């Protein structure tokens, strides 16, 4: 199905999905390891007195930040996946195919290895790792001074493999407890979020999303092919660079805080295309909001399925994502 990308259609879709996201968020607030009735949740949200009531602590200090993080990370990963699929003209691309998550993982693990104050700043180290990997893959992926999607993909895959090997080596040098803690992060874990992180993430992710949306028309043309896009007046080199940087930034921000949550960046764009078509003016907002909804729901499952213990959210997206992926494959073939 293709919904024509007019201003009105885009706005309607955004409103509809935002409404769904709001509902999902509210539902997630009421659900958790500790059972709270909706009225308790409501009181907890409004409670401003000191000292705080338990419901207020649970709802405002534990669940609310986590749900907001899930929305931001879900939107970031889904949008990054959409952009990279357009950039590489490959429907199998996901945010991690260019090695950024491996770079972030290595940054976080090195921070743990160094211990002390550095260990406490592991999200910053993870982001630094992501940035360095982005630059490295960019330089490696140039051919004849130009960014070619094929060599970029190759450079990313090679870098990811190499970094994974380094990660395994460093893991072998960590103490057992740190290794087990790292496993959470590697699978994707939304349970650790600070107010500072949220305050940094919100404007950064919003800016990157807006930047990519500004280029959504150019992304449509890029899908025709690099030469064809050039003949239609697109500065292909500049477009590729900007899209690459924005998508990498989104991935880096998401992974630094929550680890490598899988399947989201690959599948949400596909599902979005099935519903609204390939026009990025429709697809980008749909993917962003859809990714937010999916991750909020997945995280809610992760928090409740084996309560009081918690699953890493990456485990939920993998278990849910695999059958969706198989379904999409079969649909494509038939």
């Amino acid at each position, binding site marked *: 199905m293709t919904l024509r990308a007019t201003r009105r259609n885009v706005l309607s879709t955004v409103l509809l999905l935002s409404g769904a996201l709001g509902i999902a968020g509210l539902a997630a607030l009421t659900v958790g390891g500790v059972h709270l009735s909706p009225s308790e949740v409501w009181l907890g949200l409004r409670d401003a007195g000191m000292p705080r009531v338990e419901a207020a602590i649970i709802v405002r200090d534990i669940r609310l930040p986590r749900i907001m993080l899930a929305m931001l990370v879900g939107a970031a990963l889904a949008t990054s996946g959409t952009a990279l699929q357009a950039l590489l003209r490959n429907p199998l691309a996901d945010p991690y195919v260019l090695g950024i998550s491996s770079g972030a993982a290595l940054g976080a693990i090195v921070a743990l290895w160094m211990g002390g104050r550095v260990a406490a700043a592991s999200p910053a180290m993870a982001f630094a790792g992501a940035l360095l990997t982005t630059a490295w893959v960019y330089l490696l992926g140039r051919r004849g001074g130009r960014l070619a999607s094929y060599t970029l993909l190759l450079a990313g895959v090679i870098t990811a493999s190499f970094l994974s090997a380094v990660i395994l080596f460093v893991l072998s040098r960590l103490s057992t407890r740190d290794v087990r803690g790292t496993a959470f992060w590697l699978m994707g874990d939304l349970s650790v979020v600070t107010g500072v992180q949220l305050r940094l993430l919100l404007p950064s992710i919003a800016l990157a999303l807006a930047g990519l949306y500004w280029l959504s028309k150019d992304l*449509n043309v890029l899908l025709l092919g690099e030469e064809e896009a050039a003949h239609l007046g697109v500065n292909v080199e500049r477009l590729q660079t900007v899209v690459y940087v924005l998508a990498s930034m989104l991935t880096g921000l998401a992974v630094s805080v929550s680890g490598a949550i899988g399947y989201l960046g690959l599948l949400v764009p596909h599902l979005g295309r099935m519903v609204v078509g390939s026009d990025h003016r429709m697809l980008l907002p749909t993917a962003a909001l859809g990714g937010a909804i999916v991750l909020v729901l997945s995280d809610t499952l992760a928090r409740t399925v084996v309560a009081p213990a918690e699953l890493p959210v990456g485990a939920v997206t993998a278990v849910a994502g695999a059958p969706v992926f198989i379904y999409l494959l079969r649909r494509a073939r038939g």
Partner: protein
Amino acid sequence: MNEPLTTDGRPRTTESRPGVAGACLRVEGVAFRYLHFELAPTSFEAGAGELVAIIGPNGSGKSTLLELVSGHLKPLSGRICLDGHDLGSLPQRRRAQCVGLARQDAPLLFPFAVREFVRQGRHPHVDRLFESPDDEHWVQWALTKTNLVALAGRPITEISGGEFQRAVLARTLAQRPRLVLLDEPTANLDIGYQIDMLRSLRELAAEEDFVAVIVTHELSLAAEFADYLLLLDGGLCVRQGIPNRVLDSELLSRVFRTPVLVDQNPSSGRPRVTWVMP
């Protein structure tokens, strides 16, 4: 062996219709060099409503010449003038507004609808994020002219090769260019569609006042519909002019390394090329 430009029986539309703002293409001595290939300086002229066909054996430089004419490839020497502007010096977007170049497109993996595909042709003209009703009008026009209205809602991945070819033409037309360049536009079409496409191309060129330059392997079709031919061989334009002058049995046999016979199509009077069996 570049022949001097002659008007030899060829109507000079731009001069014979004064006051009409038709497009005017002037290719002046463009040359190029790849690693193992060299295109000698080539010149020709064409006006609105004219169809120029570049013919020649494989590897003779036809596609290179086409790309040079589009302004996209910078020539080693010489220049391309469209309506008096040097195409090479125009900014990319401005150039895309007046030059439409369609080559054999890469296959698409993403399911755009045909209408969306054709709409991409409006990209150089759209300033904001969304198309205006004017843009939609031209998209519809392009679809009508190429008989694709019935397929407009179909995903581009589900149409035949020939229909895809027409969609590419429609996309190029939607650009409303002054210069239309097509590389092998009839490649996957059956004989009916081949004739259809070239005829409508010529008609459109006249209606909309643009210049059409195509690269083709179909010698007889080129003879039938083109106003002007350029025969390339090994990077050199060995002869150019009206079809009657260029399509000479002995010359063609030499260039294509196989005996051919040029006679006349009884219904149209134009040259017709047939092969000679040993």
